């Protein structure tokens, strides 16, 4: 992909450098839609037998009741998984993950976290991720994989007994699934807030540059 051979020069709309290639944009927005369906229907499913002492408001859940939510969840899962596999395969095959997300060094992460907390972390060059971004983007891919695997364990604890055993057991897989959802929602809040604070990053995810 020629779009990946980015130069170090400042990226402006005039230079026309593609920051987010087409396949990243398409899979990103399909994923955003599928994630919204999965999370909102997942909250409704959670409400049928809450793990903790609270329920999600029906104004933010999808499906109306348990059966409806399960239908949404097990339909949107295909969109999420197929789209996710395309993203992972193309991401590895093109080397984009390696170029964009690696290396992640502890010292780099620490210094960039410090800079971020003192509002000194620059966003001038959208083609290069700082260490905080690298850590979060790589981390959320791992969380995405774990939430799918824990979900499969809850769905098929007999047929995929070995997978459920990997998480401890069916009951523990439910907690893992919930924690991964919480991490994704936390990521989402930071991600959306920063995209709004740095609008050109949002523009790049829509029109590519």
């Amino acid at each position, binding site marked *: 992909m020629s779009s990946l051979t980015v130069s170090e020069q400042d990226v402006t709309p005039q230079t026309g450098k593609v920051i987010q290639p087409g396949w990243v944009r398409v899979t990103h927005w399909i994923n955003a839609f599928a994630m919204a369906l999965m999370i909102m229907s997942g909250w409704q499913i959670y409400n*049928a*037998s809450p793990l903790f002492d609270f329920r999600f408001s029906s*104004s933010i859940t*999808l499906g109306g009741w348990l059966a409806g939510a399960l239908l949404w969840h097990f339909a949107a899962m295909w969109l999420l998984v197929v789209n996710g596999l395309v993203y992972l395969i193309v991401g590895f095959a093109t080397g984009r993950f390696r170029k964009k997300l690696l290396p992640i060094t502890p010292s780099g992460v620490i210094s960039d976290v410090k800079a971020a907390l003192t509002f000194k972390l620059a966003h001038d060059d959208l083609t290069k991720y700082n260490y905080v971004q690298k850590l979060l983007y790589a981390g959320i891919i791992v969380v995405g994989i774990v939430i799918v695997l824990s979900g499969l364990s809850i769905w098929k*604890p*007999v047929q995929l007994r070995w997978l459920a055993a990997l998480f401890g057991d069916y009951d523990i897989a439910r907690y893992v699934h919930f924690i991964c959802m919480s991490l994704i929602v936390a990521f989402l809040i930071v991600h959306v807030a920063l995209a709004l604070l740095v609008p050109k990053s949002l523009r790049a995810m829509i029109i590519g540059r």
Partner: protein
Amino acid sequence: MGRMRSLLIPGVDKKLLVRDAVKAMPDPARRRFIAGGASLGALTLLTGCDIIDSSSAEEVLKKVSKFNDAVQAWIFNPDALAPTFPESAITKPFPFNAYYEVDDAPEVDGKSWKLEVRGLVDDKKSWTLEELYKLPQVKQVTRHICVEGWSAIGSWTGTPLRDFLKIIGTDTSAKYVWFQCADKEGYNSPLDMRTALHPQTQMTFKFADEILPRAYGFPMKIRVPTKLGFKNPKYVISMEVTNDYKGGYWEDQGYNSFSGN
């Protein structure tokens, strides 16, 4: 559904309330449930458009659920056994669960009760409880997983269903064994033949080594550890071997029909 939402009272178990409300709905309304107005509104807001018409969304979701039935049947390994547990792992007390209170559970007279057998079998004679108790029994300590997500481990003793199906000369090329129950409103549920023939699928007569109590389905429950709880019918009064999909109490309301673990 939007109207239903405004009726929800703080402090009242919404799940039970909705379940009651759904039961009270006339049949056509009961089947139009999936894209709840309030929730769908939130989704419409999210996507910024109004393309998701609730009835067409419902049709698509039902088709995907049928597709998921096929996928699960394909994944299903008839030799894969559900995990078994030591007696010490048994959940005490084992939860009673139904769409009614325990006081409303069917009271079946074991002396007059007979298991009716219909459909694609050689011997359609009805079976008394005494006759059924004479069949060889095995015990299993397995996990019951509810569609709601909770689970509990119990001890069930009875005759493997496949042994009984053999005795009555079942056409095992048929697609389903369809069970009807004594619950109010007439509970019923179809079981695919491959699951019916699974070694752990059981005609259960005992819970925790005691005659099945009323709360857990006296006189007979079908224990299927490879299925979600609602596919484990209690208070069974008849079974029919059939090639027709006859639906089920919860299946008709939208729960995925295969619902295999």
